[in-house]
C-alpha cells in the first residue's frame, strides 16, 4: 500500500452508489406499477436490491473503519459532523409535523366544532399506555448511557448486557405502540386529528424501529470486539440517534397526547 502523508480516507471505487440508485428507481417505478397494474414484482426486486446494497455498503464501512484503520481522528470528526447534520435534518422533519399539529389545534376551525380535540374524537388517555411508553423510553435512555460508560471503561460484559436491555426496551415500546394503534378509537382518515396524530407518532415509531436496528448492529459489533474504550463512534452515533428519538417522544407526549387531549 502506497504511503500517504495525510490522515484522510481515500476511498476505493465503490459500486454501491450505483446499485442504490437503481434500487431507488426500481422501488419508485415499482410502486407506480403496483398502483396501476397490481403487480409487486418490480417493487420487490427494488426492495431486495436496496437491502443487498445496504448490507454490503455498511459492511464495507465497518471493514474500512475497524479492519483497515481508515477512521483516523480527522475522519471521525467528519463522521461526527455528518451525524450531527443528519439528526438536525431529522429535527426539522419532525418540526413540520408539530407545525401542522399546532396550526390545526391552536385555532380549531368551525368544521372541527371549534374545539380540540375535534368534535366526535375520543383521544387516548395520556396517563395509561402513553405514560408507560414515556417511562420505557426514559429507562432506555438510562441503559444506553450505562452501555456507553461500560464501553469507555472496557467493561465488555456490562456493555453487552446494558445494550441488550436498551434494545429490549425499544422493542417493548414498539410493541406497546402497535397495541395502541389497534385499540385507538379513531383512524388516520378521521380528519386532521387522525392525520396529525398518526403521521407524527407513526414517523416517530419508524424512527424507534430504525434506532433499535442501529443499536442491534452496535450490540453485534460489541460482541465481535469491534469497539475499543476510546474508539467506538458507531455506538456513539447510535446513542445520539436514540436520545433524539427519546426527546421527540417527550415533545409528542406533551403536545399531542397530553395537551392535545
Amino acid at each position, binding site marked *: *500500500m502506497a504511503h500517504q502523508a495525510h490522515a484522510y480516507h481515500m476511498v*476505493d*471505487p*465503490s*459500486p*454501491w452508489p*450505483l*446499485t442504490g440508485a*437503481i*434500487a431507488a*428507481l*426500481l422501488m419508485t*417505478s*415499482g410502486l*407506480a*406499477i403496483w398502483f*396501476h*397494474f397490481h403487480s409487486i414484482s*418490480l417493487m420487490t*426486486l*427494488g426492495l*431486495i*436490491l436496496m437491502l*443487498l*446494497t445496504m448490507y*454490503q455498503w455498511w459492511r*464495507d464501512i465497518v*471493514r*474500512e473503519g*475497524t*479492519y*483497515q*484503520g481508515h477512521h483516523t481522528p480527522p475522519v471521525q470528526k467528519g463522521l461526527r459532523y455528518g451525524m450531527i447534520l443528519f439528526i438536525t435534518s431529522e429535527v426539522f422533519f419532525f418540526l413540520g409535523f408539530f407545525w401542522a399539529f399546532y396550526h390545526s389545534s391552536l385555532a380549531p376551525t368551525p368544521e372541527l366544532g371549534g374545539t380540540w380535540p375535534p368534535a366526535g374524537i375520543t383521544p387516548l388517555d395520556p396517563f395509561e399506555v402513553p405514560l408507560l411508553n414515556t417511562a420505557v423510553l426514559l429507562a432506555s435512555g438510562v441503559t444506553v448511557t450505562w452501555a456507553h460508560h461500560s464501553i469507555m471503561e472496557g467493561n*465488555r*460484559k456490562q456493555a*453487552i448486557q446494558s445494550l441488550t436491555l436498551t434494545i429490549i426496551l425499544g422493542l417493548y415500546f414498539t410493541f406497546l405502540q402497535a397495541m395502541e394503534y389497534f385499540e385507538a378509537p379513531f383512524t388516520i382518515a378521521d380528519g386532521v386529528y387522525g392525520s396529525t396524530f398518526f403521521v407524527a407518532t407513526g414517523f416517530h415509531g419508524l424512527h424507534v424501529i430504525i434506532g433499535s436496528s442501529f443499536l442491534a448492529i452496535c450490540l453485534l459489533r460489541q*460482541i*465481535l*470486539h*469491534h469497539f475499543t474504550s476510546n474508539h467506538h463512534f458507531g455506538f456513539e452515533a447510535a446513542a445520539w440517534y436514540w436520545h433524539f428519538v427519546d426527546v421527540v417522544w417527550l415533545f409528542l407526549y406533551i403536545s399531542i397526547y397530553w395537551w392535545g387531549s
Partner: protein
Amino acid sequence: MYYKLSGFTQKLTGSACTTAYNPQVRPGSGVSVSDGGLRVGVPAESPTMTFATPTKVVSEAGAMVEYMGSNRVPDLQRLFQTPDGLPVHLKGGVPDRLLYRTTMALTIGGALYCLVALYIAAQPRKN
C-alpha cells in the same frame, strides 16, 4: 508445605509429604520416608488445595476465552490490510464476489426490466 506436580492441571499443587516429589525416595521403592537418607522432619499435615484450583479460569486461558466469543478482529485486520490491490468490497474473498455479482446482475437486469415496464405503462390503454 509440600508440593507435587498435579497430573490434572499440570501445575504445582499442595500435597502430603508422602506423595510430594522427593528425588531421594521413590514411591513404590519399598523404602518409607522415615527410612530415607534425608529425614523429612515435619509430619504430614492436610494441605489446602490452593494452587490447583485457580479462582480466575478466564485469565488463565488468556485472551482466547472471553465473554460471548473471542476477539477475531486482529486476524480480520491482517486479512483486510493485505496489499493485494483488491477494492474493499471484494477483499473478503469468494462470498464477497458472489454477493457482488448477484447485486450487479439484479441492478442491470432490474434496470432493463424497469425500462420495459415503464414503456408498457406509457402505452395508451386498449379497450
